[in-house]
């Protein structure tokens, strides 16, 4: 059966662009919200944790930068996965009325989160400059690699869950709760060193925590974990990605019937 659709790339980009356009459509500030939303959250958290709890005093001079980096990465993950998981249902028309490869729908939704993250990094750069902190080239490259890793994680999770979300809407609720748990299970508002050493190791098994912690360490403190760890994490994400593709290919077949 010939289901060829020649322009995956353009299709994905067009869908993502449309999503992006529609998302801030009708708001006076428009695209600025893409930046403003995480920024406002950051300012609140920053106020609470720098002034009230005052992490700076316990030996984290660049707490603000660490918080910002962690928060943006987390935001990227949270938005990417929740829109990715809901994508098939949100664009049900494209599933039930027409055949386009379904993975393009999932991927385009996550791309949108990548757009937003890209815009947010501008803010990050601004803050780094403001604080006079210039990360090394290696750490920037490492950061980019981590973002890529995180993106693959987002796509994998979305591909795994999107077809099931169509059948079991509970997954949406469960994922919401999981996201808020992950927010606190990852070293975003607190440095991981605050945890007991054993717990630190366990916490870092969580790929999100891993990425956030080491990305933060890289750009803020110019410290890197050993290559073995990164390799291990990369392989795990790659395996997860492969698994998600396999399962997606199976589960997407009947997805049109369940929507």
């Amino acid at each position, binding site marked *: *059966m*010939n*289901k*060829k*659709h*020649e*322009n995956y790339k*353009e*299709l994905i980009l*067009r*869908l993502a662009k*449309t999503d992006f*356009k*529609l998302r801030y*459509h*009708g708001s006076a500030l428009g695209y600025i919200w893409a930046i403003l939303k995480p920024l406002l959250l950051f300012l609140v958290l920053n106020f609470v944790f720098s002034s009230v709890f005052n992490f700076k005093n316990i030996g984290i001079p660049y707490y603000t930068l660490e918080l910002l980096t962690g928060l943006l990465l987390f935001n990227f993950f949270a938005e990417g996965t929740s829109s990715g998981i809901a994508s098939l249902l949100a664009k049900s*028309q*494209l*599933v*039930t*009325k*027409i*055949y*386009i490869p379904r993975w393009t729908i999932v991927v385009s939704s996550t791309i949108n989160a990548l757009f937003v993250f890209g815009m947010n990094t501008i803010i990050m750069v601004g803050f780094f400059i403001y604080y006079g902190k210039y990360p090394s080239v290696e750490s920037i490259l490492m950061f980019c690699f981590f973002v890529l890793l995180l993106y693959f994680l987002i796509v994998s999770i979305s591909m795994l869950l999107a077809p099931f979300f169509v*059948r*079991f*809407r*509970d*997954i949406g609720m469960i994922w919401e709760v999981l996201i808020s748990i992950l927010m606190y299970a990852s070293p975003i508002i607190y440095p991981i060193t605050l945890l007991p050493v054993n717990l630190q190791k366990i916490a870092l098994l969580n790929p999100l925590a891993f990425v956030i912690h080491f990305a933060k360490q890289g750009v803020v403190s110019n410290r890197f974990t050993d290559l073995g760890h990164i390799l291990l994490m990369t392989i795990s994400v790659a395996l997860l990605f492969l698994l998600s593709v396999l399962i997606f290919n199976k589960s997407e*077949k*009947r997805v*049109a*019937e*369940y929507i």
Partner: protein
Amino acid sequence: MKNFTLRKYIEDKKAIMLSIHLPKTGGTTFGKILCDYYKDSFLYIYPCVGNNNLYRVGSTSDKMYQSKPHTIKEVFKVLEDKEIQCIHGHIDVVVSQEIIDWYKSHKKIIIPVTFIRDPIQRAISEIRHYKEHIKTDETDEEIMVLTSDGMTPYLSRELTGLVVCETENFKEDLKKLGFSWDGVSKNITKVTSDVFDVDLISRHNKKDVLLYQRLLDIKSRSFKNKISDMAVSIKNISKKFIIPHELVNTLRGTFVNLFKKKVFEEFYALEDLSFDVKKSEFFGIVGPNGSGKSTLLKILAGVYTTETGSVEINGLISPFLELGIGFNPELSGRDNIYLNSTVLGLSEKEIDKKFDQIVAFSELERFIDQKLKNYSSGMHVRLAFSVAIHANRDILLMDEVLAVGDSSFQKKCIREFHRYKKEGRTVILVSHDLSTIEQYCDRALYLQGGKVMALGNARAVVKKYRDQMAADSADSHKSTGVAIDEERSHRSKGRNIKAKVKEVIFEDPLLGKRHLFATGSDLLIRVAFEEFLDKSDDLNVGIAIFNDKNNYILGINTIIDDLSCEKARQNGFFEVIYKNIPLRTGTYYVTVGLFGASDRIIYDFVNQSSFFEVISSDQNHGLVEIDYEWRV
């Protein structure tokens, strides 16, 4: 090159070859092939754009386009110099008196190609023109008409004494190619069995009809790597749905259900279905609601997968079932064109290129930057259709798209479908509009309950469907006393009703109560009513008949006919007998009104609430049957 009888014709100067074509049917290609083959004895001649007095000429199309503009005298010089045997060009040029005169004096062959607006009329007049001007002694009464589409029937019907180039198995060949033979008149006086073996097109030693098939194929992009003649080939597919008696889409529901006895039904939307759709076919699918039409389209489009059987699709399928997929009301028309075209597989560059065409076709130039939510539904459809057509897929799937849009746009759509067909592409149309299917589709499929009820010639299939529907509804209306359907009637409820229609009954004066009538039989309508009027009040009654497209067929009332309803008021009913009803196959709705002294005083008005059906035995088309007599 063997047996190219056309050459013989030309060498013997026996016949004038007329090649008449609808736009984009392969006529130009045909001419080009001949001209390119005969290189030096054929000549292209086309008027220069913007100046009809100057012509470009050349022995090949490339040379023609590159040549400098010639005046008509220079054209003749070229013709004489090169012993030109044949001319290929716009008929408007070739037909010009000067060229005809030149032809006469030099006894040469002309192959004109027309670009005609009203193809049939124009073609006929061209042929007449030719017959008058060129039917000279040496043509020997023999004029060969070759058409590259379904025009043969029209031409032969209109023109007696023409020889249509036929082969021995012409009928079969036509059928095989999906051309309709129906309606070809008996005026074809002579059957010739010329074999055109056109090596340069294909090695097949086929008949002229096949030659045309090849010509059409040249235009279709599938020609180069032609895999099969089938656009769609479906074998033994079934589609089963499981209908749970309660829809479970929460996890809890699933867990709870694990322990419950499973309550669901299996439902076959399609059962063991097999059929093929050929390339360049206009294929219709009909059937009542729930017969599996949409499921079938979804399987073709790849939205659903099947458990059993095989689905083979050659070529890119336009992956849409309804118009406007991917359209977003919050975006402007412009953005939506880009979005939808991308979904249909066009690249940004292609869209940029086609954008103006798409807009022009939809006739929405003024509104293109407006948000889609402000569009009317007609505008919506025009835009969507325009995008779909320009997506250039090999197979076009359409689900009830013609139902929306005004008649001029519908015509435009049908024209586009034909263009698709001519380009060797395939249109698969699902519609409840039987006349459209009947009129335009080559073949059709009649589905019921997921099974094939009929497959084949569109007209025959539609007839079978109509018969079946009529039989079904006759069954369900056995009582024939038609209760008043409140939904369709416009009765105002709170009104103080002084008179009320109780029942509308249809009868055949000879056969009694019935629901189904034959064209030409008598129809009696009896309306029972009750009234609470004063004796002094006037009462008038009226009956109107509408067809299922809401066309007003006939309205009568006792005010116009100046009758008194005294007797009816005593009886509590009145009757009307329509003699020899000239209505053709269809469903007809009846409106009954009870009025006072004028039709402004309405006591009761039951709008199209009851209906009867008519079946005609013949194959004619149109709304009414008029007595006619052929003098042919």
